[in-house]
């Protein structure tokens, strides 16, 4: 078994410490748009990164394969590809496979081989196991067992493109301006303790969930042990990884809506809870009693996305920035307002949400953004 720790977190520090730029754009009518404006926006926040990681998640990217799991997989060498493809052949039916097109780009050196596969679970899927659970297990297997292979993303009609470089370099390398999607998230990193590894860039993904993250979780040890108790192998020693798994546990396995999940990640203070109505008090107290170990403590801003939904959230005392902009069906989330205004000068609305207050953009939902007032 390969040791991912030595790749993602070569000094074996507890976790990866990083500051970052993050950006998200969503057309809530579901209309797809090209990446050029998103790339321009994230490039505007160049100084928030240090060139050690950039990436994008695009939703609605593969409308011709809506029911296939789109695997984006990076290989460090040809043997990894051979081994992985044998593994994929064993467990999946293939619809299509191809190398992801790439182009010469500034500051990109030693890129891995990156392929995409459109797959459906094969005969090895046990009776009664859901497709999603099966896919999660196979992804974990590839990531932990096959040396030199790493799954960038594994969701339907979405894909993650990421690597070592500034985000604009990564966009150039993969030619992202040519893709279209209704929801884009983007990330530029400033890690302090990680070396150049393509898999370590954001967004982090499991199924069609992605997370981009600016911050450092002081609660990482607590979060991690809680998730490990529930079967998530936190092999990469990054705090972003635990956010992705926590989202998977709460939303997919426990079936909780994002509004509730936001209150688990960034709960109101006990003193605030005391001022709520009796029913709300009961709910909030229960959330804090049952999920104390998933409180994300320490400075963070995250943008979580999955099919038809984009959520922005900061820690409850808002130690990392998040700005929201709206124009028509378009919803923007960004570390800096300047990046939004650069591509959308005539915003109808722009605001900074309170700490712990989720900003939720929904596909096919009412036109306005849901942003529950701070508690």
């Amino acid at each position, binding site marked *: 078994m390969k040791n991912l720790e030595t790749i993602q977190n070569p000094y074996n520090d507890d976790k990866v410490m990083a500051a970052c730029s993050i950006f998200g754009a969503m057309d809530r009518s579901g209309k797809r748009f090209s990446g050029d404006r998103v790339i321009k926006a994230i490039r505007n926040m160049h100084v928030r990164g240090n060139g050690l990681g950039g990436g994008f998640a695009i939703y609605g990217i593969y409308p011709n394969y809506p029911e296939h799991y789109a695997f984006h997989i990076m290989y460090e060498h040809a043997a990894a590809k051979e081994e992985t493809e044998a593994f994929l052949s064993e467990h999946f039916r293939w619809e299509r496979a191809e190398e992801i097109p790439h182009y010469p780009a500034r500051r990109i050196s030693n890129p891995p081989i990156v392929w995409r596969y459109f797959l459906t679970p094969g005969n090895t899927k046990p009776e009664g196991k859901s497709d999603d659970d099966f896919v999660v297990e196979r992804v974990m297997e590839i990531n932990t067992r096959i040396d030199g292979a790493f799954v960038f993303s594994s969701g339907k009609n979405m894909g993650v493109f990421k690597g070592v470089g500034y985000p604009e370099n990564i966009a150039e390398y993969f030619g992202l301006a040519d893709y279209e999607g209704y929801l884009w998230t983007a990330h530029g990193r400033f890690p*302090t303790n990680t070396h150049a590894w393509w898999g370590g860039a954001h967004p982090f993904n499991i199924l069609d969930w992605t997370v981009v993250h600016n911050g450092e979780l*002081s609660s990482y040890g607590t979060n991690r*042990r809680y998730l490990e108790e529930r079967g998530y192998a936190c092999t990469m020693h990054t705090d972003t990884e635990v956010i992705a798994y926590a989202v998977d546990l709460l939303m997919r396995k426990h079936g*909780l809506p994002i509004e509730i999940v936001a209150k688990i990640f960034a709960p109101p203070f006990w003193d605030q809870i005391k001022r709520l109505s009796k029913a709300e008090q*009961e709910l909030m107290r229960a959330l804090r*009693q049952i999920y104390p170990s998933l*409180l994300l403590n320490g400075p963070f801003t995250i943008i979580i996305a999955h099919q038809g939904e984009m959520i922005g959230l900061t820690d*409850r*005392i808002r130690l990392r920035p998040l700005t929201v902009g709206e124009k028509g069906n378009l919803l923007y989330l960004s570390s800096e307002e300047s990046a939004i205004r650069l591509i959308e000068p005539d915003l109808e609305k722009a605001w900074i949400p309170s700490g712990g207050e989720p900003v939720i953009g929904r596909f096919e939902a009412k036109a306005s953004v849901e942003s529950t007032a701070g508690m």
Partner: protein
Amino acid sequence: MKTFVPPKFIVERNRDRCINCQVCVRQCTFGTHYYDPDYDEVLSREGNCVGCHRCAIFCPTGAITIRRNPLEYRENDNWRPEILEDIKRQAETGGMLLTGMGCDKDQKIYWDHLVLNASQVTNPSIDPLREPMELTTYIGAKPERVEIDPNTKALKTRIAPQVELSIPVMFSAMSYGAVSLHVQESLARAASEFGTLWNTGEGGLHRRLYKYKDHTIVQVASGRFGVHPDYLDAGRIIEIKIGQGAKPGIGGHLPGEKVSADVARTRMIPTGTDALSPAPQHDIYSIEDLAQLVYALKEATNYEKPISVKIAAVHNSAAIASGMVRAGADMIVLDGLRGSTGAAPKVIRDNVGIPIELALAAADARLRQEGIRNRASLVVAGGIRKSSDVLKAIALGADAVYIATAALVALGCTICQQCPTGKCAWGICTSDPVLTKRINPEIGAERLYNLLRGWSLEIKDMLGGMGINSIESVRGNRLHLRGIGLNETELEILGVRHAGA
């Protein structure tokens, strides 16, 4: 028989200061000081001094100094003075050596080999003077997940009874009879005012203390003293006491002379009879018996109260902890090697049981491996001396801690270990009606409240330094601990890395 045990202390009386007022004579309960009318002077019998410093603190002219007796034996690392004196004492009495308080031997204190983390640059520390900082802790079994009605968005999950603590520090069990009613009232008042719990111990609950019932843990121990329906109803939590860190595996014995009419009424035994607690609970000879008692108590109290089970930390307490959780305990308590007592055989106190730090780390890890950590709160006792010990215990995985010795020290105790004599000069571990007046419950409660307040401020400061504003984000967060001077086995059991790594 002439004792061959030399005096432990010498009393130095500064004659220039002594005014022969006899305060020391009245304060000392061990007959160390006496007034000699022939000389018209206060004199001392040094062999009686236990080093409790009551006289020195209360001497109005500061005339008294207590020193260790410098009488020295020939050096010998094997036959140390304590060993010689223990043998002599047994040769003179033919009995077991009884002692009080916790193990005073030099087994490693792991708290002192663990250091905490703080934020620098990559994340900001938080100033607790300017930002909210939460220590609130809920004791009780937690369900694995929450369920919410998809239509009404209302909470569907019914959570087992929970008890709120404003600081994850509770007062550990000290029974009425072992300590005085005034001590219990001091604890009860402080716990009520601060928002935490005190514990009756196994001696029942005096009628006068029923008003503190919202902050009371009532104990059900092997003697079943004072256990009746009102008593169970008065408890916020009911604790089944299996064992105690100071004397794992053995029972208790409150001598008849301490069983006053009041103690007798509270314990529901005849006045003046010895109160004997059997070594095991005679209806618990196995884990399934424990489950029966847990559920009997739940039935008796309508499933409205968390049930705690307390054991001494012993070699396989991690596995036992798992069994206790599976037997239905909502809170489990591990009491470590350094846990205290009013009376225990010295040989047991000093040689049986394991340090609480290791027991805690192992139990927390075991419960997580088995996926049942949420089903019970984990509380540790026995050796918590200061706020940093509290925070380190929580980082190792405890939900809360119990303190008892620290609470008694706050009331004046100097750990002179004379508890079994019943002569406590500080009026703590005694039922002598004159001596117990030395503790004023109002002042006692204030001292205990102040201690909790001081600790909570310190814990908040340490949390803020870590960049954390809620205690639950440190719970089980061993990454915020590093070891110093620990070997690999110790680090592995504690689940922490060495400092610098």
